[in-house]
């Protein structure tokens, strides 16, 4: 009756412990009490070497839209008011989508995180990279008085 099942069942049991559980939508942002983002005029977006330019470009555009002078590259210059670093995580579900995006605004001399934002959206409620960047950066600046 279940001639095929015995082969499948051990595989399923082997795979089960790998799973970490289910996922959800989440958006958080922090602003360090010692940070004053209002004094920032120039920003450098530190591009991840593996980035094909899409995420980096979107972050550059977003900060330009907020009135900053923005440059980008893979090194970390000290002659700017702030560095912006990011970590993007992608998943595949029929197509590739951005699962999570973390953006951090840092002191260029000490790398200290002045402010950061993180957004996570799983497949069913996925957002475009542009929407993810907008959400993360807008949430960061909601913390600024």
């Amino acid at each position, binding site marked *: 009756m*279940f001639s095929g*099942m015995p082969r499948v069942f051990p595989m399923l049991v082997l795979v*089960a412990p*790998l799973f*970490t*559980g*289910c996922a959800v939508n989440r958006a958080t942002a*922090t602003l*360090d009490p010692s940070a004053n983002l209002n004094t920032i005029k120039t920003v450098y977006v530190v591009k991840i070497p593996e980035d094909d330019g899409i995420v980096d470009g979107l972050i550059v555009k977003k900060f330009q839209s907020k009135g900053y002078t923005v440059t980008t590259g893979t090194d970390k210059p000290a002659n700017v008011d702030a560095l912006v670093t990011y970590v993007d995580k992608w998943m595949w579900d029929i197509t590739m989508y951005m699962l999570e995006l973390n953006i951090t605004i840092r002191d260029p001399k000490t790398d200290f995180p002045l402010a950061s934002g993180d957004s996570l959206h799983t497949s069913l409620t996925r957002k475009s990279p542009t929407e993810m960047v907008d959400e993360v950066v807008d949430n960061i600046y909601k913390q600024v008085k």
Partner: protein
Amino acid sequence: MNKSVQKLMFVMSVLGAISTLGGCASPANREAMQAAPVASLHQSEHSVAVRTSGGGDTGAMDSSNIADADFKSAIESSITQSGVFKTVIQGSGADYELSVSLVRLSKPLAGFSMTVTMEDAWSLIRASDKSVVWRKPITSTFTAGMGDAFAGVTRLRMAVEGAARENIAQGLKEISDLKL
């Protein structure tokens, strides 16, 4: 009941068992995040108030996160145990204000070994004049393997707790070195 329906019911019951084994996550436990006391730390005579931010609750469909209140409690307990500050005060009135913001919590989606990386922004402010005494980003990593727990969700939670515990230990060591 024909064979295809029986097979479908069998697969559904197995998937249900997998879900149970995989389980849904629980939040990082505050006691498990508490750093082990270190006798060699400098013991200040001053008081401190702790503030945390950037954490998040763990929903029913989520992977283990660190709630701000739990992280704050773990830091306060670690301070009390180690004596880095003489007293921990809730609210205002402390000599120093310690702010710890969770900047990034990098967690794997699956795996036999779960490695979690955590970055926190630590800043210590003198309450009297609001001057920044010290601030530093601290990154910590912890791995939980199959020997630690069978279920993936449990290994992940243990890795999150371990990364937080290590982060607190590093932070308190840095503060101790200030010799306040």
